[in-house]
């Protein structure tokens, strides 16, 4: 069972207090988008072996969504950060690059 620190309220919460929200940083495609764009947005996910960016909600705590960078292999959590952003913070990316030299980046 994972523990994640909610960047909004600062609580280090057990997984049972959290709700998983799948991949982070998806760009929404609405009316006017092509079938391919919409399919990508709705269905195609990275599912990486290694560094993964994902959404979590502190459901049984402050109720806020936040984002987390985590290794799907070792379950190491590189950091959690605000959901009100379109890309991971630069410091976090730098930290992950340092820890995982072969990492191809979040996009």
């Amino acid at each position, binding site marked *: 069972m994972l*523990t994640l620190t909610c960047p909004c309220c600062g609580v280090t919460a057990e997984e049972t207090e959290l709700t998983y929200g799948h991949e982070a940083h998806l760009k*929404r495609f609405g009316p006017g988008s092509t079938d391919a764009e919409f399919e990508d947005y709705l269905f195609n996910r990275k599912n990486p072996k290694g560094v993964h960016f994902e959404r979590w909600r502190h459901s049984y705590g402050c109720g806020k969504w936040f984002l987390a960078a985590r290794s799907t292999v070792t*379950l*190491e959590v590189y950091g959690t950060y605000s*959901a*009100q952003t379109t890309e991971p913070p630069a410091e976090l990316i730098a930290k992950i690059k340092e820890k995982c030299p072969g990492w191809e980046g979040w996009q």
Partner: protein
Amino acid sequence: MSTRLSKGGRLIDRSKPLSFRFNGAPMRGFAGDSLAAALLANGQVLLGRSFKYHRPRGLIASGAEEPNALVNLGRNARVEPDQRVTTTELFDGLEAASQNHWPSLDFDIGAINNTFGKLFPAGFYYKTFMFPQIAWKYLFEPVIRRAAGLGTAAKEADPDRYEQAYAYCDVLVAGGGVAGLAAALAEAKAGKRVIVMEQTPFWGGRAPVDGGTIEGLAPAEWIDRTLDLLATYPNVQLMTRTMVAGLHNHGYAICYERVADHTPGDGRPRHRLWRVRAGVTVAATGAIERPLAFAGNDVPGVMLASAVRDYIVNWAVSPGDRVVIVTNNDDAYRTALAVLDAGLTVEAVVDARERAGGDLPQLVRARGVRVMEGRGIAGVMGHKAVTHVQVCSQAGEGGVTETLECDCVAMSGGWSPVVHIFSHVGGKLLWDEAGAMFRPDATRAPTGPDGSVLARAVGAANGHLTLDAIAAEAGLSAEVEPEAPLAPVWVMPAGAGQALRFKAFLDYQNDVKVSDVELAAREGYTSVEHTKRYTTLGMASDQGKLSNINGLAILSDSLGQPIPTTGTTTFRPPYTPISFGAMAGEARGDLFQPMRRTAMQDWHEAKGYHWEPVGFWRRPYCYPRGAESHRDAVNREITNARTNVGLLDASTLGKILVKGPDAGKFLDMMYTNMMSTLPVGKCRYGLMCNENGFLSDDGVVVRLSDDSWLCHTTSGGADRIHAHMEDWLQCEWWDWKVYTANLTEQYAQIAVVGPKARKLLEKLGGMDVSKEALPFMTWAEGTLAGFPVRVYRISFSGELSYEIAVPANMGAALWEALNTAGEEFGAMPYGTEALHVMRAEKGFIMIGDETDGTVIPQDLGLNWAISKKKADYLGKRAQERSFMVSPDRWRLVGLETLDGSVLPDGVYAVAEGNNANGQRNTQGRVTSSYYSPTLKKGIAMGLVLHGPERMGEILDFPADKGAVIKARIVDPCFYDKEGEKADA
């Protein structure tokens, strides 16, 4: 024959005799005995029958690894099957019974399987019970199910109490032997919060039995001194009878405390499940001795060498007078010494190694014991107890050189570190050639959330099998007899033929033999995980603690590859079985799950309501009167609401307040309809879809003020929809100025429904509820009978209807007032079933009936509730996909049976022909079906291919037993199509 020795026994208190029963026979033991020790002390060598062949079996081990000696413990409601006697503490009045035999332990009919053993090789079930297919259901499965399983479960509810607790620490030490206590002390001195858990009632592990000195002290003295020292640290918690059952992600450990198994009925909870969050877990879990695979190694009286000396030293129990020791290592010679010290006889030490020249063998030789080098065991004679062993050359094929008379065989094939805790979360192992064992690889330890080491192993669990090595790792000094290297022995003798391999057991509990693993390898099973499942090696309740390493060594040999290439099977929690009671904890009966109560719940209960679960609510289904059936009650409630006035507790409806400058824009995205243009004072029915376009929830939206809307959701959907709104607000449109609040439980809500609803409210008085002042689909605030209310003119029944919201603390009083004032109008409460039938009579959809996550609003004829003007809403793009706009989607219609009967819910309408699987093609299905007391016939709704274009057509619905029900496609609205009543 086993017996109690007159002297010794470091764990027993001879001044406290205890009495117990085994298979009804009275027996005696002492405080401190395990049930295993007490049974042996009473001469009970035969303890059970094996699972497959019903072979007589006795004790092999003295601890948690015991595979054979499982009993039914207790009786009646407290009976518990498959309890290991080695880990059961004796108490006065204990009752145990042996398992898996009929009619008795001594004479078991099932043992016939043993005679035909050659007919039950690995994969027997897979190979035999193939054809005909029909026989599975009627012949094979019933027979196999009857034969399967060992013990018998209690049929009554468990009368004992269980609880769960949380704990947090920097260091969790699993195991209270020398290595564990030394590690705990070091961590305690460093100021860490430490919890030490020992699964047995006693501290110290094997050291007090195996001897040597630590820091100049005898092991028992060192242990006492260290415990005293640890007790002075406030940051240390010491727990016995508590097993670290499993280590999970991020240092989450599940631990199992057997609080009162040994003191039944003393009022304490029987078991306690600990959820411990530990920074680092130290696996000080010791090692388990391996059996040797020789023919007849399962005859009662053949035991692990370590177990033999445990029984002698710990409990003063002699497993036999005349002991033959068979070994491939020096450690087993300690058993010879223990046997000799107890005044018993060692007939010989049979050592598989060419040479046994170490200090320990010399000590044993010096006491006049014959050591037979380069020898093995060709066979064990005796059925329910050992009588002789046949000695042979280890290098040969099993030609008997000598027969030794004995009543106990102590075997040792070396030791396997208990790596479970280290491995549970992904710690990797390495193969230690010298020790012929897998041990933890510290360079590939499991890691935690910050990437640091989550678990490490110490002591024997880390491959340090001797006291001096264990002490050295902990920075202590120790002295103990040095040990010469072992020689790996996986089959005895090395050239054993099929006949011997067929009697050499690997997994005692599941009756898997050397020959079975070899057969699996010949049949192409090269993966250890597949071989495990095919042969069932290691799949019994002992999870292969004794058998796994031997089994994979034999598999490796058969495949001609080194052992590390074969690898181990996955170590999974729990380490030993834990009770369902502990897992359930207090979550039973009323505490099984939380219950949500509306303000009127007490009233419903007092009226003897019949309820149904809706989320965590218990909503009234109906209110039966006297001996009235539920169905009659529902019909009465409907008819009354349609002719007089009905009252519904609608408090469970979700009520989410959406407020802010951008609230209208936000709701336009949430709902398919336009909500931003809804005038203040009005209500509008709205649909919510997910991004996939599928209908997810519906409800009436109310414009409270310029910047505030109140969104009603379905009863089960409030939390989900609130979370859905927050998701989009926080993660997509975080710059929009909108707040949401889930007010569901802040208000009690009552639907007053029926032609006399207005009269009833007028009688309560306080506000104008006339058609002119409060038309359909509007709302107003005011007072009714003095209560501050908000009244919505909305209708889910098709009748004149008011939904009245009051602050929750006034809900019960208003409900009471409405019931009392309503008497003269014939007011009656009605339940959810009446609600469902009335909405179906009106052709209103219900989320979860008409929708199932694959239905879009357009399927349900709800295009009128989808805005054409809006550029975007959640689901709009998805609804433009080709298969969403296909004219071939099944669409909502009403269904009317030709004979007036009620269609079974969920039945399909068949079409011509069959599909690729030979199943009948379908063209629709029933989504809601009820008896309508208003129309006095069955009514239904369904989704039908081209449905709305096929009005009047008749469909065939096959039902049970070949019957076909014919139903006509009709308009889904069966009642008051013009809507005049609701608008009255």
